[in-house]
């Protein structure tokens, strides 16, 4: 085990856990200010988590182990992904699984666990949320795969570290049609996967519109805290992945502490800018009707497919 790999293995998950709630807080604050409200402050999600952690865990009648294990599995898969993806350092401890297919599949595994938990409660809401979430996942997973495949064709590898390194060496590649098509497809996929507008509205509990919230409606106390934390972490992970795939500058290529520190700052800045852009965009967007969402996802899938085709012909 070498030093940079170990450093990134500790640094990355700690960063993701610590910063994700702040990121969500920042997005809410930006929205609040743009909507003319004062807003609860950036640290509110952390305060919510602390409060939820102190509550008594609840067990809805009729639910099983699936319901209790799902939040932990969601958290665990997100943690593994946060170690495997090159965020602050291109050298990863989990390089053998730092593969885009493995990463997407791991994140999907977490979502599947949550969908099963939604079904497990046996309520209409849980089933509805699970059904909608799996429909979205069934369309998003291929979009993400195809989009990142487009990026990997020219590198000749689906290893994320290798993709990031090759973009570092050849920055002009970012402006190619392949990258731009893939970026748009990936952005739509990430918005859908993390349940943001216009696919899902994270701030409402209205049964006609909700996807993610319907699925986790029964969770309370520490379980809910884990689900909320993991959802925030997934948002950070996806935004970080997006940032480093297209704008990898600042990422450390060795274990030098100064470079690592610089990488942390660069990553924080990139993710914050992306999150702020997403928050600003959300103010101007209305949620799509549920059955218009697949049209959006199909569109992004086609863009991803075009990106793959372009990468074959331009290679």
């Amino acid at each position, binding site marked *: 085990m070498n030093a940079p790999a170990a450093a990134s293995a500790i640094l990355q998950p700690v960063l993701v856990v610590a910063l994700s709630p702040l990121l969500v807080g920042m997005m809410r604050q930006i929205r609040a200010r743009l909507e003319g409200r004062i807003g609860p402050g950036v640290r509110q999600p952390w305060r919510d988590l602390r409060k939820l*952690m102190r509550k*008594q*865990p*609840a067990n*809805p*009648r009729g639910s*099983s182990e*699936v319901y209790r294990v799902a939040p*932990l*599995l969601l*958290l665990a*898969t997100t943690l*593994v992904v946060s*170690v495997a993806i090159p965020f602050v350092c291109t050298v990863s401890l*989990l*390089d*053998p*699984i730092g*593969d885009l*297919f*493995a990463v997407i*599949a*791991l994140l*999907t595994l977490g979502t*599947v666990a949550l*969908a*099963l938990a939604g*079904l*497990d409660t*046996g*309520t209409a809401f849980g*089933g509805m949320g*699970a*059904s*909608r979430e*799996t*429909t979205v*996942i*069934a*369309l*998003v*997973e*291929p979009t993400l*795969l*195809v989009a990142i*495949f487009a990026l990997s*064709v020219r*590198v*000749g590898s*689906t290893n994320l570290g290798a993709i990031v390194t090759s973009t570092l060496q050849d920055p002009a590649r970012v402006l190619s049609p392949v990258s731009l098509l893939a970026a748009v497809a990936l952005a739509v996929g990430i918005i859908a996967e993390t349940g943001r507008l216009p696919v899902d509205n994270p701030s409402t509990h209205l049964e006609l519109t909700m996807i993610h919230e319907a699925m986790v409606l*029964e969770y*309370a106390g520490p379980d809910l805290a*884990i689900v909320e934390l993991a959802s925030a972490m997934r948002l950070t992970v996806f935004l970080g992945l997006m940032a480093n795939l297209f704008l990898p500058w600042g990422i450390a290529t060795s274990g030098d502490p100064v470079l690592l520190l610089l990488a942390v700052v660069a990553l924080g800045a990139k993710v914050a800018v992306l999150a702020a852009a997403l928050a600003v965009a959300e103010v101007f967007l209305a949620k799509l009707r549920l*059955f218009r969402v*697949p049209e959006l996802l199909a569109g992004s*899938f086609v863009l991803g*497919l075009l990106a793959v*085709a372009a990468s*074959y012909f331009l*290679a």
Partner: protein
Amino acid sequence: MNLTAVALVVAVGLGLCASVAGSLCPRRIRCTVVGIGTAACGGAAMVAGLAAIGGQSASVQLPDLLPLAGVSIAIDPLAGVFVAVTGGVAVATGIYGIGYSRHGSDGRGVQSAFPLFVVAMLLVPVAAGVGTFLLCWELMALTSLLLVVAEHRTRPEVASAGRWYAVMTHLGLVAILSGLLVFAAHSSSDSFPALRAAAQHLSPAVSGLVFVLVLVGFGSKAGIVPLHAWLPRAHPEAPSHVSALMSAAMVNMGIYGIVRVGLDLMGGGPRWWWLLVLGVGALSALYGILQAAISTDVKVLLAYSTTENMGLVLVGVGAAGIFHSGGDQVLAGLALAAALLHVINHAAFKTLLFLAAGSMLHATGTRDLDLLGGLRPVMPATTAAFGLGALVASALPPGAAFVSEWLLLQALIHGLPTAGVATAIAMPLAVAAVALTAGLSVATFVKAFGVGFLARPRSRPAENAVESPPSMVGGMAVAAAGCVALALMPTALLPGLGRVGAALLGAGSPVTEDAITVHLVGAAGTLSPLILIIAVVIALVLSVGVVRAVAARPARRDTRLWDCGAGPLSSRMEYTATSFAEPLQRVFDDVLRAEQDVDVTHFAESKYLVQAVEYHRRVPDRVERRLYDPVLKVAAAWGRIGPRLAPGSMHRYLGYGFYALLALLMFLVVSR
């Protein structure tokens, strides 16, 4: 006689003994004897197959056993893979059958056909001559037909399924027969080595005809679209352990045939063959998983999932052929290894899923997911088995199918346009099809497991279900152990599969020999299933530890479900399989064309008051509607016209004879 030959002879001998025992033993011990005999036969076959993959080939010539051509048998690494897979499935289904057969399928015919079916499937891949091959193929078809119609006395729909199966399987045989006969006509004898030598001298037209004919025949056995119509009929109606054997072992023979004839005997061939294979594979994968995603009958769902997985395997085989014809042997070996690994993984998880579905059917008497649910507390072993199978089937880590799909995608992604525009268009589309299939299979198996086993029971039978007898649980445990072993150590199998590619294509091993990590040879790519599993487990332990340390620790409290304040929720308010799949069905409505029917009954007093609303939804198999219905209609019309020609008038029959003779004479005069 080496280990392979001995084990193969033992396996066939045990299978035949079990078959005889099935027809002679008294009813009381029949199922047990047959089950143990079949499992032992499967075990010996696994040894033979693994030894053959390891490099110990064997061949036997018995020229006097049959007139004309005799029987010739040879086992090489490729045959070894299929023998080992069939053997493994036979072990699990044999043990499971002991308990399962006691309820309705313990008759002499069924019990003696079951081991015979296994023996036939063991002999198909080791046959080394056209005559032997066709004989074993037909034996396999006949025994499986007997098993499909095993329950025809109790359920009338079995007969229809049997008819479909009989017709389709024999039309397939006709295609294979004519293809291989055309092939053998150009060769000195009907043995495979002679065919291999003759293949180089075939004209492109003849070899193309042979390949298309065998592709149709073997494709119908593998259940590829549009020849899949028998699959969603025969699999559900057969007893569950027979469905497992058919779905996990028999359909593989279609793949075997395509690989054997196309890649081995004919030595590759032009690129269009393999583009065709890739195309039908991608189409089958997508169509199969879409139909599976919306079906509510659990065994129909599994049958369509077989179509999907065989499609994925054919994508791999097609890619292997394309790379082979383009001269890229390393990638060809990788694609073929991915396809064969997927065959093995599919066999493991499909056996498990069919056995678990059989256990569910055994306990509740229904296959309809809409009526099930809530089986987890009463059937924990079956729930665990189905859950594991569903995890693997949805190609998510840490399942084994994830690794084979990863290998397949790696092969496709590295298949840069080495040769021509057609490949450059086909590869991205194949990647997209595989990716879309992966997404839809997640939705399918979340539905199957979540709706079928979790939540609360939706009907009385589901409420009163009890766990299955130990032999059935034992059979499921064997299949589950296979799934877990494959998930942990796919790396143990890959060198062997590489050897298959080496024997067929002259390729080197596609992966380096490393116990933990899969390193691709000649292409960048690594994946370590074992490290992945360990990492997830460590993360899980860490999260549990941190949450324990941070969270307050009062005991868990049982709470009411959120019911919007409207009183307790009944199980009628739960999501069913139909409602779960409704969004997907809407999304893919252009492909699926569901037929919906809403009947509203009003009160007689006022049409504004609704008395009852009845909702029907049916999603017919569209390929079937468009392709088979017209053919069946024409056949029926022909049947109605027939009697008009034969009204019973002797004069008319004499007239037919006279005009026929006249026409023949005129033909002879003209043609001379």
